[in-house]
């Protein structure tokens, strides 16, 4: 007989073992699927690994693909930590790109430090304002943030589209081919973000910045007063109020922070990758929604978000590179889906433990309790 029992506390090793096990299981399930459809699973995985991570230039492309996911993943993880469901990473990233591209165009060929800082700041402010709208509505008017952030995504997407395709705005290129085909105005060459060459691969400044932010967030949640407040408000708002925490202010502040991170993601998209505000491409990519998946897979841990973003980025990068008659086009999406399902399923094992009980001798040895908690009967 098998039984599920809720764990009183989660031992440390589980926090690594469960996600690792989930990834393995997802790969196994994917292998079964591949075999059933007549592909050689090992060979396909080998290809994925090569094109995603090991072959020449692959890791550089993977990091590029991972960068926006890193930012939107952090954006979701930050908000979800307080059970504020910011689904608006998408719109906040777009607004960040709008702000950063304006800054990039305006600051032009000035000193690179000033230009890059200006773009980051502009992106962060635009993202923060965009999320702050939903945050203020939630904090002071008690509206549902899921709905407001989701709706604001459409507003942001349409606004960006209008700026480039529907108007003669500052963002639109009016000269050259831009006179015929509507397109964004590129930022000056001097505003392109630097990258660091590691020999085998190159890391864009955006990815570096995102990783630093992830570490910073980890510290904030672990050992600052703000992080403590986020924890209490997320768990029990009444207790937070009782303890004299300014819950409304914290909700607003956290939303703004979350939006600022997505906004910097938008800035990075302009500064690292496209060098132009490209609303169509941003909408098609759906970084905001993918970020929610990244945050969920990382179990809202900012450091884990970095690695999950690399994994997901690698998969989509390899998928793009390998697409063709020999390679199942839906495989990457399927694998990502399997990863999500198995990771969320793995939560069960993190929260509960399984005990096999023989019908007669159901002797439960307290020593097999992970963590070895002493008996409490009081």
């Amino acid at each position: 007989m098998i039984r599920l029992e809720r764990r009183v506390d989660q031992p440390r090793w589980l926090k690594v073992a469960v996600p690792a096990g989930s990834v393995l299981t997802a790969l196994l399930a994917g292998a079964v699927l591949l075999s059933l459809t007549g592909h050689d699973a090992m060979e396909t995985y080998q290809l994925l690994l090569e094109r995603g991570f090991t072959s020449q230039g692959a890791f550089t492309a993977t990091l590029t693909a991972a960068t926006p996911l890193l930012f939107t993943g952090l954006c979701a993880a930050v908000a979800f930590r307080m059970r504020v469901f910011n689904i608006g990473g998408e719109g906040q990233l777009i607004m960040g790109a709008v702000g950063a591209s304006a800054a990039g165009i305006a600051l032009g060929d000035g000193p690179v430090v000033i230009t890059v800082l200006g773009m980051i700041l502009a992106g962060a402010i635009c993202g923060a304002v965009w999320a702050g709208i939903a945050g203020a509505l939630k904090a002071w008017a008690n509206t549902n943030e899921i709905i407001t952030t989701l709706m604001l995504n459409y507003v942001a997407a349409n606004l960006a589209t209008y700026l480039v395709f529907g108007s003669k705005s500052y963002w639109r290129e009016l000269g050259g081919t831009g006179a015929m085909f509507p397109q964004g105005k590129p930022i000056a060459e001097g505003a392109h973000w630097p990258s660091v060459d590691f020999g085998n691969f190159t890391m864009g400044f955006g990815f570096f910045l995102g990783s630093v932010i992830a570490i910073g967030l980890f510290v904030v949640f672990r050992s600052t007063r703000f992080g403590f407040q986020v924890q209490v408000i997320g768990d029990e708002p009444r207790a937070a109020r009782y303890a004299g925490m300014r819950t409304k202010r914290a909700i607003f502040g956290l939303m703004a922070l979350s939006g600022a991170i997505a906004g910097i993601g938008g800035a990075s998209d302009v500064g690292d990758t496209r060098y132009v505000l490209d609303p169509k491409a941003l909408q098609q990519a759906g970084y905001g929604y993918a970020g929610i998946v990244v945050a969920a897979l990382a179990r809202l841990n900012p450091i884990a978000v970095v690695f999950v973003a690399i994994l997901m980025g690698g998969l989509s990068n390899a998928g793009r590179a390998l697409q063709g008659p020999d390679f199942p086009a839906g495989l990457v999406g399927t694998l990502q889906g399997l990863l999500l399902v198995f990771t969320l399923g793995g939560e069960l094992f993190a929260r509960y433990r399984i005990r096999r009980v023989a019908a007669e001798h159901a002797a439960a040895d307290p020593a097999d309790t992970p963590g070895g908690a002493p008996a409490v009967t009081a």
Partner: protein
Amino acid sequence: MPETTTNDASAGGRPPALAARRITKRFPGGVVANEAVDLDVAPGEIHALLGENGAGKSTLSNCFTGLYRPDEGTLAVDGVPVEFHSPGDAIVSGFGLVHQHFRLVEPFTVAENVLLGEHGRIRRSEAEARVAELGDRYGLEVDPSARIWQLSVGQQQRVEIIKALSCEAKLLILDEPTAVLTPQEAESLFEVLRRMTAEGRSVIFISHKLDEVRAVADRVTVLRGGRSEGTHVVAGTASRDLARLMVGRDIDLGTGPVPRQQRPTAAVVLRVEDLRATGDRGETALDGVTLDVRAHEVLGVCGVSGNGQRELAEVIAGMRARTAGTVEVAGTVLTGADPRAAHTAGLGHIPEDRLHTGLSPSLSIEDNLALTAYRRPPLSRGPFLRRTRFRARAIELMERYDVRAPGPTTPTRVLSGGNVQKVLLARELSSDPKVLLAASPTRGLDVGAIETVRTLLAEAADRGVGVLLLSEDLDEILSLSDRIAVIYEGRILAVVDRADADVEELGLLMGGDVSHLSATPARGSA
């Protein structure tokens, strides 16, 4: 004391309605909730399960209703061995459970809730007729077409019982049924139970209150620390003996006042003047409350539930806005609803809803102990927390206040009620308050924990804290207070010294009868 030994002591040879043998249930973390518990319930018997919180009463009843499966042991119904794999199996065997926290669908009507447990076609009119019929037969009057949210707590409990009876329950298990009832409602519940047993149905009555067990049960099985302390015929057993079995030591059952040196000249630490506030539904909840609490004293506020006690506590603690009046804590006038300001002025607060207002249930004991102190040194420096000090402080406070838990990182939601309250008291008293506001601090706790909490409150007053005690338990008010205020419909009707207090007079005042007070000023004497 007479201990019954045979399985069918009071049943004249018929097999017991329920015979449980050596029931053992373990939980993760090494917690043994029940260990080798034997229990026999005779047909037509009201059998009490008596024990402190955490003694394993609820776990045992959940083993009987299929919610849990025991790790060891056997169950037999009417002499036939059974094994429950789900609550459905238990219902088929004729077991009905009335939870402490009701399992009713609030927007549904009474009849619809009764239908929930059934299969096949839904005939609403038939269900309504059946509810009416059952209500008639057992004295469980309730309108079958009323929606649950419209009903009082006592009426909701009747619906739960009707639900069980409608499934032909032969054995009804009631988990702490009187915790939510007024004394009058409790008495009518007992009457219902007697009618049921007169028909040959059996009842398991779970409680930690001795007087209730004495009032309603035929036999009682005492649980302590998950083990059975034996089954006893209630009529032949002294309350003191049952109490000792329950807590494992002698306890003081008396309601005599805690002796305390009177210091009528001590400074006033809490001054409440003409306080007015509205309740959740916009009704007038506080209608000009005036009272003072001095250092070194306990002022007990007694009254029937719902006369403004909750609102009074919330306004003083800054958790509810007032419409008029002043609150002054240790010389600081509190303006507006701001819990932090109240706390900074020197107010400690034990809220009525301890687990969800006083504590953050999923957080660890160590975090909860720092819930208010985290923002100041020594627990934080600048924006950063000092986690090692959190831990050290938690270990020290858990030791000093005898909080029993696996460790400082245990989430508070898994603690028993008594330990939850100890965590709260530890935190509030360690912040060195000038005033301690305690709202129903012992409600739902077991005898041992009640004693601990009362001692802590009395010690706080001895040290110079002014304690404002709000309680619906008159015995508690009488045993702890130096002065007693009676609240009725949002007003303080009278304040009397403990020495001059007369239970009957207090009772009349709690009911709003001020006729015997005509000579004395009704208000403002505090």
